[in-house]
C-alpha cells in the first residue's frame, strides 16, 4: 500500500514538473521598439490589442521608453504576428531589441 502511494506521489510530482518545464519552454519574452508612441493616452491601445491576442501572456507598453515588453507562447504565435498586432494599432513596430 505504502509503495503504491509513494509511486503515485512520484508520478504526480513528475507530471507537474514536466508540465512546468514545458510551459516555461514555450514562454518567450521579447522587447519590441514601437515608433510614434508619443502620447500616453494612445498607447493603451497597444497594450489592449496585444493582451487580446491569443498566446500573449503579458504585455507592458511604455510610451516613455517607446517599447513593448511582451511575454508570449511561441507555440501559438511568433514575433511577426506581434509586430502585425502593434502595426494594426497605428504605431510602427521597428526592430527587436532583445529576445530571451
Amino acid at each position: 500500500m505504502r509503495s503504491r502511494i509513494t509511486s503515485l506521489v512520484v508520478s504526480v510530482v513528475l507530471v507537474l514538473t514536466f508540465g512546468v518545464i514545458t510551459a516555461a519552454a514555450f514562454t518567450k519574452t521579447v522587447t519590441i521598439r514601437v515608433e510614434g508612441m508619443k502620447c500616453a493616452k494612445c498607447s493603451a491601445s497597444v497594450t489592449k490589442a496585444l493582451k487580446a491576442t491569443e498566446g500573449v501572456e503579458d504585455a507592458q507598453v511604455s510610451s516613455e521608453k517607446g517599447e513593448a515588453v511582451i511575454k508570449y507562447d511561441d507555440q501559438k504565435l511568433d514575433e511577426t504576428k506581434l509586430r502585425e498586432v502593434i502595426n494594426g494599432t497605428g504605431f510602427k513596430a521597428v526592430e527587436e531589441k532583445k529576445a530571451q
Partner: protein
Amino acid sequence: MTLHGIVFAAIVAFSPATVLGQGAIAPQFTLKDINGRTVRLSDYQGKVVLINFWATWCPPCRAEMPDLVRLQREHGKQGLQIIGLTYPPERKTRVRRFARSLKVNYPIILGTREIKTRFSSEETLPLTVVIDRDGKVSDIISGILLREEFEEKIKPLLKKNMEGEMRNAKSDH
C-alpha cells in the same frame, strides 16, 4: 457634511475613470457637424449609437477609423449609428480633410472638453461610448475598438431590436 458625504465627494473628485455608469441615460447634445449639419443625439433614439472620441494626431484613432466606416456600412441597416467627436478640439479644415480622405460615412463633430467630460473623464484615446436603443450608456470602450469587443458588446444590442421587430412582423400577419 457627514463623514459619508466627505468620503463620497472624495471618491467622485479623485475618480480617474468614467463619469457615466452603465445604464445611465446618455447626456443629450445638439451640435453642428463639420459639414454644417445639425446633429442631435435624440435624433438617433431607437438606434445603437457609438460616440467615438478621437483626434487626427492619435495613431490608434486613425487606425480604427476605416473599421468604423466598415461597421457603419455593414450594420447601419441594423440600427448602428456612429458619431465621431474630435477631442481635444481641432481645426475644422484639418478634420474635414482627414475625414474626406477616409470617406467617413458618419457625422464628425468638433468636440469640446465640456462635451467630453459629460461622458467620461478618462483621457484615453480613442474612447467609444456605447449607447443602447433606449438611450442608455451600455459601455465605455477605452482604446481601439477590437473586433471581439464589437461582437461581444455591440452586436447583441443590434440583435435585440431585430428580434423584437421580427416578433412584431410575425404578429402583424
